[in-house]
């Protein structure tokens, strides 16, 4: 601050201050814009690195064999669409069969998960009963158990029942709420629904089943949708259980079929293998594009209380 007796008036001083402030603001805005730009540049480069492997897979499925390796260019010199046709029939059994098999297992698993997990979740979230806390604790503990620990006795048991080489070992557990994760996800959602709904319905003489069916389920479509999508994707990609339980190639699911390509590496072409790999991802990508919101919200809410 100038205090000496000069000819600078108060007005001039204020003007000066305003100019400095304006300059600072401009500079700050510029810096913020620069920051945003840098951030975008960085995120775009990460995006490219993230997507490149997928694009490379797609490109390789269309390239001539000797173009695939050692080349970074994604654009094929000539498009080999026949990789898809040849790959589809590239194994002793056509992929039509594998897709039908995978679809059967997936659809049944999704239905099983939705019914059995919403049943259990409804009891845990909305009903009072003796032993609730204890059983809920048990259910949460099963989340931690690795599938490998129960695998051997389950296999022995299913073998005795004559279920090996059928889809029963893959599907029946889903009807017994074996994926506790979905129970947890639904419990989190059911709990948020207002209690007054149940109470009012109860006073009107609704049975618990009626409340579950006519009130809770219709209000919980987002949670059910999330569970259905994850259940679909995980079942579609599942490898270990089919690997153990399915021996006959005619009953193979898509992931098992893909592995056959690997076993005959050298004999069959890479282009065909990549083409079928791309196709195996299509249902997952479609589910993701259609239901992105449900998936994102599902992870955010099940991950958090």
């Amino acid at each position: 601050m100038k205090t000496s007796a000069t000819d600078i008036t108060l007005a001039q001083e204020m003007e000066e201050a305003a100019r400095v402030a304006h300059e600072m603001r401009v500079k700050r805005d510029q810096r913020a814009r620069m920051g945003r730009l840098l951030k975008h540049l960085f995120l775009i480069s990460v995006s490219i690195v993230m997507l490149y492997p997928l694009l490379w897979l797609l490109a390789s499925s269309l390239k001539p064999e000797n173009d695939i390796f050692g080349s970074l260019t994604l654009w094929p010199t000539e498009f080999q669409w026949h990789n898809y046709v040849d790959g589809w029939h590239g194994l002793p059994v056509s992929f039509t069969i594998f897709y039908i098999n995978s679809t059967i297992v997936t659809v049944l698993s999704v239905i099983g998960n939705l019914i059995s997990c919403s049943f259990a979740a409804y009891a845990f979230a909305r009903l009072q009963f003796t032993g609730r806390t204890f059983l809920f604790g048990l259910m949460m503990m099963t989340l931690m158990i690795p599938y490998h620990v129960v695998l051997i006795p389950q296999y022995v048991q299913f073998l005795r029942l004559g279920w090996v080489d059928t889809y029963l070992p893959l599907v029946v557990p889903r009807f017994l709420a074996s994926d506790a994760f979905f129970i947890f996800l639904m419990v989190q959602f059911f709990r948020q629904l207002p209690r007054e709904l149940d109470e009012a319905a109860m006073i009107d003489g609704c049975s618990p089943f009626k409340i579950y069916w006519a009130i809770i389920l219709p209000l919980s479509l987002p949670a059910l949708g999330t569970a259905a999508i994850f259940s679909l994707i995980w079942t579609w990609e599942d490898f270990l259980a089919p690997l153990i339980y399915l021996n006959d190639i005619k009953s193979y699911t898509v992931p098992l079929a893909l592995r056959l390509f690997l076993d005959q590496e050298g004999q069959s072409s890479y282009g065909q293998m990549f083409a079928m790999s791309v196709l195996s991802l299509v249902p997952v990508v479609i589910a993701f594009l259609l239901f992105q919101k449900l998936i994102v919200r599902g992870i955010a809410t099940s991950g958090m209380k």
Partner: protein
Amino acid sequence: MWRGSISPLKASFMRRFIARNAPAYAFLTPWLLGFFLLALGPILASLYLSFTRYDMVNAPRWVGLANYEYMFTRDRRFWKALEVTFTYVALAVPARLIMALGVAMLLDKGLRTIGLYRAIFYLPSLLGASIAIAILWRQLFAADGVVNAVLGYFGIQGAAWITNPDTSLYTLVVLAMWQFGSPMLIFLAGLRGIPKDLYEAAEIDGTPKWRQFTRITLPLLAPVIFFNLVLQTIEAFKTFSSAFIISNGTGAPADSLLFYTVYLFNEAFKFFRMGYASALAWVLLIIIAIFTAISFLTSKYWVHYENERD
């Protein structure tokens, strides 16, 4: 007690008890059946089998602690599998979480196109578990693969990543990093929950960005970090499909990809040493249980929940 006369009082109590609980247990029936038949029963059965020699042809023969004794004292592959798995967990989990947190923080502040980035970053997490991606990974890191082509562009001579036992495990760590999407989404939700005025106040006080991160973001995000850490570690211990495919189902080269689950699978379903494999399974269960217990027991020292403060 049930003989003869039940007093009317007791009978009505019983009736009310049943009426109160029947609907809930009806709804729980599928899960209860599953719990006993698919979880508890098999876990106990596998404990029993772990004390036997069992090849699926002859009946299980009791051998006491022999399986465990062999495992801990003579089985080199068991120790190798532990080494591979622990190395993987120790590298892959932090790498994935740091990646997830870093990107989540970039996305959290002031970007309008967040949805697109979020979708791109999340997609690999959905696809990553599939066999197609494992097949792709084998080719990317092959001696004549894309990774070496990129390195060659910069004049670097790349290794045969997959077939070299010194480097093969890192290709799986990179695969794990590539799938940082789901912890990223959870971090994003957590970051949303931190009040923005905290940062504004810090900004006015001239607190440098790094200290804002260590003093505001990290402590307030601790519960979410904890949750992700536990979840991702359990996931990492269970890694199977990608390791199985990339190592040709055997843990090759030179057992450098002998993940615990791959070893267990081979003992059980290739060599039909079901008793020994059951013992392996129980050790895995105990390892995961110990890890989870440690995280929960220590969590009170470094995780503070917002609503617990007085």
